[in-house]
């Protein structure tokens, strides 16, 4: 698991995404994360996937240190695929299925699997711009950017605290697992991880709680509770590039809306009775 220094290693890189004003970056990611939800045609979803891949590559992001963000997403994708595959479809739908597998009350069909795949792909695509923004932004600048866009200070602070605490939990887990390994408790194979998970939980919880408590007290003693954010040391100033990106973004959003609703493209009925 990545330490905080590894987890945030992408933030220190330099690319056009890193240099963007946090507000423009937030707007861009909000648009890019929500637009794919309008599409379900696999070809269009593939297009979104390629677009995000290009964006992540152009931002010089190394995926390995932030793989943990994908792990959670991949679990959700798997759950979605399973959900779609085993959803109880009406019998009249099943006549269209080319493949049916039954085991007790469970019924899996190729239609269900296809539906699950589309649902999972859309979730994965949604995850990509989120990874883009987390990997290229300092948590505090991101939270300040949200606040400048009108998000309540308390929610901005919660976001900031979550981003700061997440790698801390991974670091503590690594240290505890190492210490337990030396005492003969393994967390290597899947079976060992499952059976020894109970031994990991309490020390992980207590250590994370202690460390985050110290961090919490430290930030409280620096006036965190005042939540008086008005102005910042670093100025928020839109550059010419930011304006250009904003204009391109607006044109892109309009084009996507026109394709989807004006031309009625990009949607394939998932569920076909």
């Amino acid at each position, binding site marked *: 698991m990545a330490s905080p220094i590894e987890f945030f290693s992408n933030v220190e890189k330099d690319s056009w995404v890193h240099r963007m004003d946090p507000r423009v970056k937030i707007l861009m990611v909000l648009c890019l994360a929500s637009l794919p939800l309008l599409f379900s045609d696999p070809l269009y979803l593939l297009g979104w996937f390629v677009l995000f891949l290009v964006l992540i590559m152009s931002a010089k992001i190394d995926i390995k240190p932030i793989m943990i963000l994908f792990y959670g997403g991949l679990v959700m994708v798997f759950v979605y695929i399973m959900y779609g595959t085993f959803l109880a479809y009406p019998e009249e739908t099943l006549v269209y299925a080319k493949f049916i597998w039954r085991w007790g009350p469970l019924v899996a069909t190729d239609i269900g699997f296809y539906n699950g795949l589309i649902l999972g792909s859309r979730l994965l695509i949604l995850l990509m711009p989120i990874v883009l923004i987390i990997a290229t932004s300092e948590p505090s600048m991101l939270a300040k950017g949200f606040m400048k866009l009108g998000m309540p200070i308390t929610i901005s602070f919660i976001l900031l605290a979550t981003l700061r605490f997440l790698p801390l939990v991974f670091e503590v887990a690594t240290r505890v697992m190492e210490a337990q390994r030396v005492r003969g408790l393994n967390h290597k194979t899947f079976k060992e991880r499952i059976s020894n998970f109970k031994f990991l939980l309490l020390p992980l919880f207590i250590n994370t709680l202690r460390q985050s408590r110290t961090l919490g007290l430290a930030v409280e003693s620096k006036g965190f509770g005042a939540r008086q954010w008005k102005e910042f040391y670093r*100025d928020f100033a839109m550059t010419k590039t930011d304006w250009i990106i904003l204009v391109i973004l607006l044109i892109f959003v309009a084009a996507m809306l026109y394709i989807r609703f004006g031309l009625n493209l990009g949607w394939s009925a998932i569920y076909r009775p």
Partner: protein
Amino acid sequence: MPESKNQVVVDIRDLSFQYPRGSVPAIRNINLQIKAGEYVVITGPTGSGKTTLAICLNGIIPNLVEGELIGEVIIAVDMNTKEHPVHELTSSIGMVFQNPEDQLFSLNVTDEVAFGVENMGYERQDIIQRVDAAIEKVGLVSRRDYSIFHLSGGQKQKVAIASNLAIAPQILILDAPTADLDPISSREVVGTLLDLRTKEPSKTFIVVDSDISDVISLADRIIVMNKGEIVLDGTPVDLLKNHFHELDDLGIRMPDHIRMMHWLNTAFPGQKEFFLEEKDVRHLMEKYTSSGKLIFTLPPEAVIPKPKEDPVVRFMNVSFKYKNGPTILEDVSFDIQHGEFLAIVGENGTGKSTLMKLMSGLLQPSKGIIETSGVDTSCALEEVLNNVGYLFQNPDNQLFMGTVAEEIAFGPRRQNCSEEEVNKRVDEALEMVGLQDACEQHPFTLSRGQRQRLAAATVLAAQPSLLLLDEPTTGQDQVALDNLMELTQGLIKNYAASVIMVTHDMDLVSRYATRMIVLDKSRILLDGSPLEIFGKKQDILARVCLAPPSMVSLTNNLGGKNECIPNFEWAISGAKIHNDVKTAV
């Protein structure tokens, strides 16, 4: 507004506090006044209540920590901590915590220093002015745009100090500010505090630490706590001269030059002055040695076990690097014999911890072979782990069973010992660490000191042939550290085990280690006895920014002899006082 000197800025009246699950109050009947511009050190053994007192001062208690608070704390003349939330007290009292890693919230130096003033809602111009001034005061101008991950421990602690200074509180509390730092970083932080004292004479500094070695030269006043109460309060000279044994019995870590000063005071009854500065103590020693009243003789060197065919650990041309990372260790070869106590020292990032993880089999070498008790760590890891005991800095990482007894029994059971043998080892280990009465308790209900002893017990019960100690001084007072070292000595004596310790504490090395390895730039720079390295290789140590123990500086070339004494115990055991001197020693 700066307070005038002699004005009381901290006024504690009949203060007691008890945590919700505590059986006794953590602090009780505290009455204390601290004046503007005073530099106060609050010390005491682990669990004496000093940190609880510190967080009462800045309002964390009672605003954020639950418990029963009786009495009052008045800050900056008229702010009662019961009536103001923490952020309202922030502009009057700041706090720097022990571990720099646990208290920095932002990823960048400037952002972190600005964090507090931004929270307070100041105008941008004011924020810039305060942040720039604070960064300048702690000497971090050249690193203002650095990521905090690229700073040394000392620099991180300076960032924490600067982020408090930017808010410009009248009082700054520092909770064990050098406890988690290497010697270079500690010197950096102490230098900054000395500098700040000159730059801001009206600011009040309160340092809380069980080790007064680093901060003794800064203090105007020392307050000693024990069992939640203030037991001593006075100037450093008064306390160290007249209450030395009380401080020593409480487990307060003191530098060797202070121990030597006290010894000289006792050995030479005519010696009335008590010096705090190392150079003054050295002058005094020179005075006595040159007049022939005092002779220091070098005790015989510790016997280093002769190399055997079957060393406990054998490193053969070992290199290690993380995938896509820099080389951590390069072509390292050495053996460790049975019964050896090896200290591994070096700057942060030189590969000390990696070396320990390689020995325990947690990491595998990129090149070369490592054998632990004759077993190749890359082939039979389980067998290696049966022979290795690893005591981590934080005991909570290695405790996971439901009761103290089960925790200790885990190791012997894993080694397939009979139940009779398991019970025998559990009883022995419980007795050794004094936890017999707690054997059915959950490990996490014990105090930190008890958890540290329990972690030691789990290692002892497994009777390893190799014990690895990772920074054993962290978070320990002198008594707890002495106890741990006694246990390790017992392991060496009873089971011919070898002990390997990673540490920054050169006094500890000089007291216990029979051999030391100095790492530099991924390689072994020096390998020899502490006496030899501290005495004859000081120039090489200085090149890698390592300072020898303070006794070495005190006794270097003393009386024209080209030798030195590495620790206080050796110095006084070999000291001869002229017959004419009537001594109390």
